[in-house]
């Protein structure tokens, strides 16, 4: 029952995290910042706007992105197969990319293309993460992973690699080239408006939930450790966001793939020796 409640509320929790983050970022930049509930104000406002459509495919694909992302979050909460969750998440990203390519807008295309390249950067690391958990627990099932003791120590290198892909997924500096407001005005989301933009806006919240739920997996059955991890990583990500510029896609690929794969590799090899 509690799971159902969590699944239904997932976007709302994500919205709260997003609001907290905006507030925190403003404080780090010496500003007052928007109210905590600002994301929800934006949400209600977007419902009330006149909706524009470029073409039906574009809009429907955007919605599919949102729904499938919600599915991903639901499956994590329900404790399904981790590998399947990762692939379903890939599917949801692909919906978004297809949406971006389905309009005749150059910024949308560039954004989609960068999103594709970003997938190239983070997907192998996610798969390795899944395999790491599999080696530790003998199962891909998230419910099993949650029942076991914390995996943070044995998967520490993979954890570091995972930290690198949080900014990619959450569109934070230095790895936010796929959204890049100053270059391509938001990339994929540029042609969405009104209530249809809402889906993308809320999908961003779900992305928070997805990434932090994966993070919690490192803590296993230790809820305290999980909360601590969340707090530390949340702070760290924002700190890095405020201390770096946006780097280019080619650099992103080199850095994330180079460092992430090496770390993951070392960890997997180490695991099989122990």
């Amino acid at each position, binding site marked *: 029952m509690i799971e159902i409640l969590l699944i239904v509320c997932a976007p709302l929790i994500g919205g709260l995290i997003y609001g907290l983050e905006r507030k925190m*970022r403003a404080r*780090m*930049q*010496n*500003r007052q910042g928007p109210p905590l509930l600002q994301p929800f104000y934006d949400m209600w406002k977007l419902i009330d706007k006149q909706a524009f459509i470029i073409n039906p495919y574009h809009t429907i694909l955007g919605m599919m992105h949102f729904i499938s992302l919600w599915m991903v979050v639901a499956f994590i909460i329900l404790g399904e197969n981790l590998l399947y969750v990762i692939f379903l998440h890939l599917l949801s990203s692909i919906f978004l990319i297809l949406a971006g390519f389905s309009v005749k807008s*150059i910024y949308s*295309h*560039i954004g989609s293309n960068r999103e594709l390249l970003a997938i190239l950067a983070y997907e192998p690391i996610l798969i390795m993460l899944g395999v790491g958990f599999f080696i530790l627990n003998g199962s891909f099932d998230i419910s099993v992973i949650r029942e076991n003791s914390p995996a943070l120590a044995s998967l520490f290198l993979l954890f570091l690699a995972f930290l690198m892909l949080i900014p990619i997924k959450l569109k934070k*500096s*230095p790895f*936010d*080239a796929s959204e*890049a*407001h*100053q*270059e391509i*005005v938001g990339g994929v989301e540029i042609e969405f408006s009104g209530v249809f933009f809402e889906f993308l806006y809320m999908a961003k919240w779900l992305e928070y939930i997805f990434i932090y739920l994966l993070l919690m997996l490192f803590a296993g059955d230790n809820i305290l450790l999980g909360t601590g991890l969340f707090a530390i990583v949340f702070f760290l990500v924002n700190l890095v*966001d*405020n*201390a*770096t*510029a*946006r*780097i*280019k*896609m*080619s*650099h992103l690929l080199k850095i994330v793939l180079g460092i992430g794969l090496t770390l993951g590799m070392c960890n997997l090899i180490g695991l099989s020796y122990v």
Partner: protein
Amino acid sequence: MSKKTINIPLGSQHISLLEPVRFKFECENEKIITVDSDVGFVHRGIERACTTKFKFDAIGYVVARVCGLCAITHSLSYTAAIEKLLGGEITAKSKYLRILLLELDRIHSHMLCLSHTCENAGFEAMFMRIMGDRELVMEIQELLTGNRIQFDYISIGGVNRDISSEISKKIIANLYEVKQRALGYMDEFTNNWSLSLKFKGIGALSLDDAYMLNAIGPLARASGLNIDVRNEIEYLPFDEVGFKMQTHRDGDINARNLVRLNEIINSIEMCNNILEGLPEGAIFTKLKGKPKGEAVIRFEAPRGELMYYVKGNGTAMLERVRIKTPTFSCIPAFSHIFVGENYADAPAILASFDPCLSCTAK
């Protein structure tokens, strides 16, 4: 095989642009191959209006509206030209005050450019930091002139407001603060890893190209071309107030940023020296007569050399006002720099030129 290039537009309305300008980049993937630029969106016809609509004593305020950022240079250049035609001599104090404001304007303009470059490079926190510190300069400008941006401080024959000792103290205090901050930025620009990926070696202009393509201002100085009007004119003894030429060899975005930062620090020194050695006297002398003849005046605006040509025929209406703005001279260099760069860098490169299209189109 079909065509493999894409056209990426930048402007006329784009979030990374403050002013309407249109670039069309022909890109291969995201690498820029050719650039097509269009700058005339803000043409308002000020030069013509100066000879038909306004009398010569009002034009100083009109030409300030050519550009909000180098407003003071425009009005100073125009006023100096008229003063040259009228033949009167103005007091030393008003000259010093004019230069003081000119340098203050340079500081805030450079800070804006730096922050905008950071913003376009995706470094929001740095943008906020520099914009926040820029308010220190805006504050003293407001104290000194009564307005934050369009000062209307200079009039023919002198300046409009005197400076009190409290204001002078406040200026010195704030500038000291700004200098500390600027040293902090220097550190950030040199040492931040992500900024170095974004700025170092990007958008480079070699010394030869800078010379060939007629680059001026910080753009040329960052490439090692030591060209600065303050070094060449005798309106004020710039050497005495502490002017030093700032150059850099690399010619990339980072070099331009460092040149601007060094100029900020130099300008702060100059302001301090000016305030220290401020001569006593009136701030205004009444000049009589109508302008007759031709005058050419050059000043160093924050973006480079600004040249005014004024021709009067002895009536209140001028015969010709010609403005040659710094950005206009730099446009060939801009287009040259873009070629071969990544589109992802284009907004930051553009911001690092500190283009003023409002000046260019007039």
